[in-house]
């Protein structure tokens, strides 16, 4: 019964949102055309949008909706984004392909060596272990001299050299039966490979180095994620001067890599992070979200082009859903034998750094952030409760669970509303998925008592309706004005 009511409300809400969506698109379009005469600055749009506009303009002028002059005026108003020009696009796509080829060749050389050519003898094998490395290095020198502007050449020669380092060390280990200390091997590989990323401006090497750091963090040793700091200067340089497709690839992977390696290095020992793994991950995700907003700008440049914010948003969505569920707050290690060493204080410091980032972004951009963005970042407050629990001054989680449910409900509603306003399909879907996941989980969640469940459902339902009513009251007015203005 309750489900029926909620689903009917839900569908009704969706229908109204869809209506509003159509109205808005139309209204905005008319307004834009009216305002054309008053603006002198060109608007920057993507190549894809420009192509669409081009075809529509031809259509409109042939239908007699606008004159040829108006069509030219509209065309002159828009300017196609430069960085996504066709030449650079093909260049980095080829770069990726060639780099992949280089990677396969490098892997092939390693396997060729792994076959163990015992018949060759020690001196021949020693010579062989240097051969690929020297050839790859020579390729790097050639690239610098003649082809440094080509992404493909740079990525390929750097990638080959990177793999050749591993091949060389491995073959020597095999020839002399050196024991298999994998950790030392990976550290050596990392140290010898890192300068390549800088010398050759290679994103492929950055990606491979990221993988090495994640690998190192599985060795249950020291906080190897600190090695990511070594990438920062190059990354900043790429951010300013080389923001192509491979830049976004390596940033996406590094973002996941940092979160993964921080948690990996923490779970093998008792640290403030592994005491409350899910809350820590939520905190990290929130910090990523804020950091992305401040680095890549508040203007929403799309899902793919802001790796930090997108990863953060995904993280907040997933981990808040997990935390909306009974026991998950106290998952993790018991606080039995914490070792207060360097790693412990480093992890504790990390929590404060995350809070620092979040507070700074919130204070600095408060007025420019949408309500849902503020809420997404404010969810980090929940980590405070984990600290309070650690200090044993807070025991009950039931309020937190209810708060977390309300948070997801309100924020996802706000996201849907904002997505409709901004005309962004991906954001709308994200909000809808988030909300429906919450509803589904609550229905199958048997851990909460039936009475509390009932109250929670009533609360969720009324929250849903309330937000919808509030939304239509608040947002109908300017829309009506827009339409009136359009009709004038």
């Amino acid at each position, binding site marked *: 019964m309750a489900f029926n009511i909620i689903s009917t409300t839900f569908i009704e809400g969706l229908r109204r949102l869809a209506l509003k969506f159509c109205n808005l698109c139309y209204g905005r379009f008319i307004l834009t055309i009216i305002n054309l005469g008053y603006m002198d600055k060109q608007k920057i749009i993507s190549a894809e949008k420009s192509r669409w506009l081009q075809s529509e303009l031809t259509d409109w002028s042939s239908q007699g909706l606008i004159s040829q002059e108006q069509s030219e005026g509209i065309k002159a108003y828009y300017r196609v984004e430069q960085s996504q020009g066709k030449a650079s696009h093909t260049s980095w796509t080829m770069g990726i392909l060639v780099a992949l080829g280089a990677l396969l060749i490098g892997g092939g050389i390693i396997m060729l060596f792994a*076959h163990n050519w015992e018949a060759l003898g020690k001196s021949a094998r020693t010579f062989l272990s240097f051969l690929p490395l020297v050839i790859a290095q020579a390729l790097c020198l050639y690239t610098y001299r003649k082809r440094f502007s080509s992404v493909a050449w740079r990525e390929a020669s750097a990638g080959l050299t990177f793999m050749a380092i591993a091949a060389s060390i491995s073959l020597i280990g095999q020839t002399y*039966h050196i024991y298999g200390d994998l950790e030392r091997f990976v550290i050596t590989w990392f140290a010898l490979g890192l300068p390549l990323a800088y010398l050759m401006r290679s994103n492929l090497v950055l990606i491979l180095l990221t993988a090495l750091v994640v690998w190192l963090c599985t060795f249950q040793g020291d906080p190897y994620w600190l090695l990511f700091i070594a990438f920062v200067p190059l990354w900043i340089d790429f951010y300013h001067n080389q923001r192509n497709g491979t830049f976004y690839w390596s940033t996406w992977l590094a973002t996941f890599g940092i979160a993964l390696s921080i948690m990996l290095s923490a779970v093998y020992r008792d640290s403030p992070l592994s005491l409350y793994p899910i809350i820590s991950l939520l905190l990290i995700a929130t910090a990523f979200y804020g950091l992305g907003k401040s680095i890549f700008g508040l203007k929403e440049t799309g899902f793919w082009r802001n790796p930090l914010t997108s990863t953060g948003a995904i993280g907040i969505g997933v981990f808040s859903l997990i935390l909306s569920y009974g026991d998950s707050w106290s998952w993790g290690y018991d606080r039995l034998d914490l070792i207060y060493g360097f790693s412990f204080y480093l992890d504790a410091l990390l929590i404060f750094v995350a809070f620092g980032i979040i507070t700074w972004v919130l204070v600095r951009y408060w007025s420019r952030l949408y309500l849902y963005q503020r809420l997404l970042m404010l969810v980090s407050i929940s980590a405070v409760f984990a600290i309070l629990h650690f200090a044993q001054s807070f025991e009950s989680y039931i309020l937190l669970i209810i708060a977390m449910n309300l948070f997801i409900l309100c924020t996802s509603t706000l996201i849907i509303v904002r997505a409709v306003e901004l005309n962004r399909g991906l954001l709308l879907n994200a909000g809808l998925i988030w909300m429906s996941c919450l509803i589904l989980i609550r229905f199958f969640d048997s851990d909460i008592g039936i009475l509390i469940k009932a109250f929670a459902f009533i609360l969720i339902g009324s929250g849903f309706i309330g937000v919808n009513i509030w939304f239509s009251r608040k947002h109908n007015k300017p829309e009506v004005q827009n339409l009136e203005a359009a009709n004038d």
Partner: protein
Amino acid sequence: MINFLKKLYQKNVWLPLALLVFAIQLLVPGYMIFEQQQTLKHGELYKFKVRPIDPYDPFRGRYVVLSFEAEQNHIPLIDQDKDNYNYKRHAWVYANLSRNEKGYAVFDSVTIKKPEGNNYIRVKSRFYSVNKKLRVHIPFDRYYAPEHKALAIETNVQRRSRNNDDEVYVAVKIRNGKGTIEDLFINDTPILEFVENLRP
């Protein structure tokens, strides 16, 4: 730092730096070879009795894992270390070497500090028993073998190391606490030769 990166790609900065990096990339494997060669040339020869198994390493291919008879026993700490030893697993300690009546290597005692002379190796601590004795792990535990011969080596060594008449051992050169495997032997025949002779 960012200004430095701008300068990095000028010819007079990039080239020397790149050559330096490439030289280091070559020197590190070069040094590894040098160290092993020095040990093989100037090291003290010890024979370790073994029983092996056969796994695979993605980078270095097939190898035979060696487990040593010298590792099987608990070894006493030397007297001055007995009272101030804090046991930590997988920490480096030093094991003093000698030869038994058959000429195979055995451990006499374990010390925390590096001993004098050439008759010791660096080992990893494994278990610690109440009577202040330690079980250790010898680090040079891999014998890399050609892909198609690894299995034959494994089965032969396994069968023959259980049989008391056959002598299976590795010859290891020891220098400055580090060991380099010379070869794996069955009854004084190098293993690869031995496996080849088995084939019809």
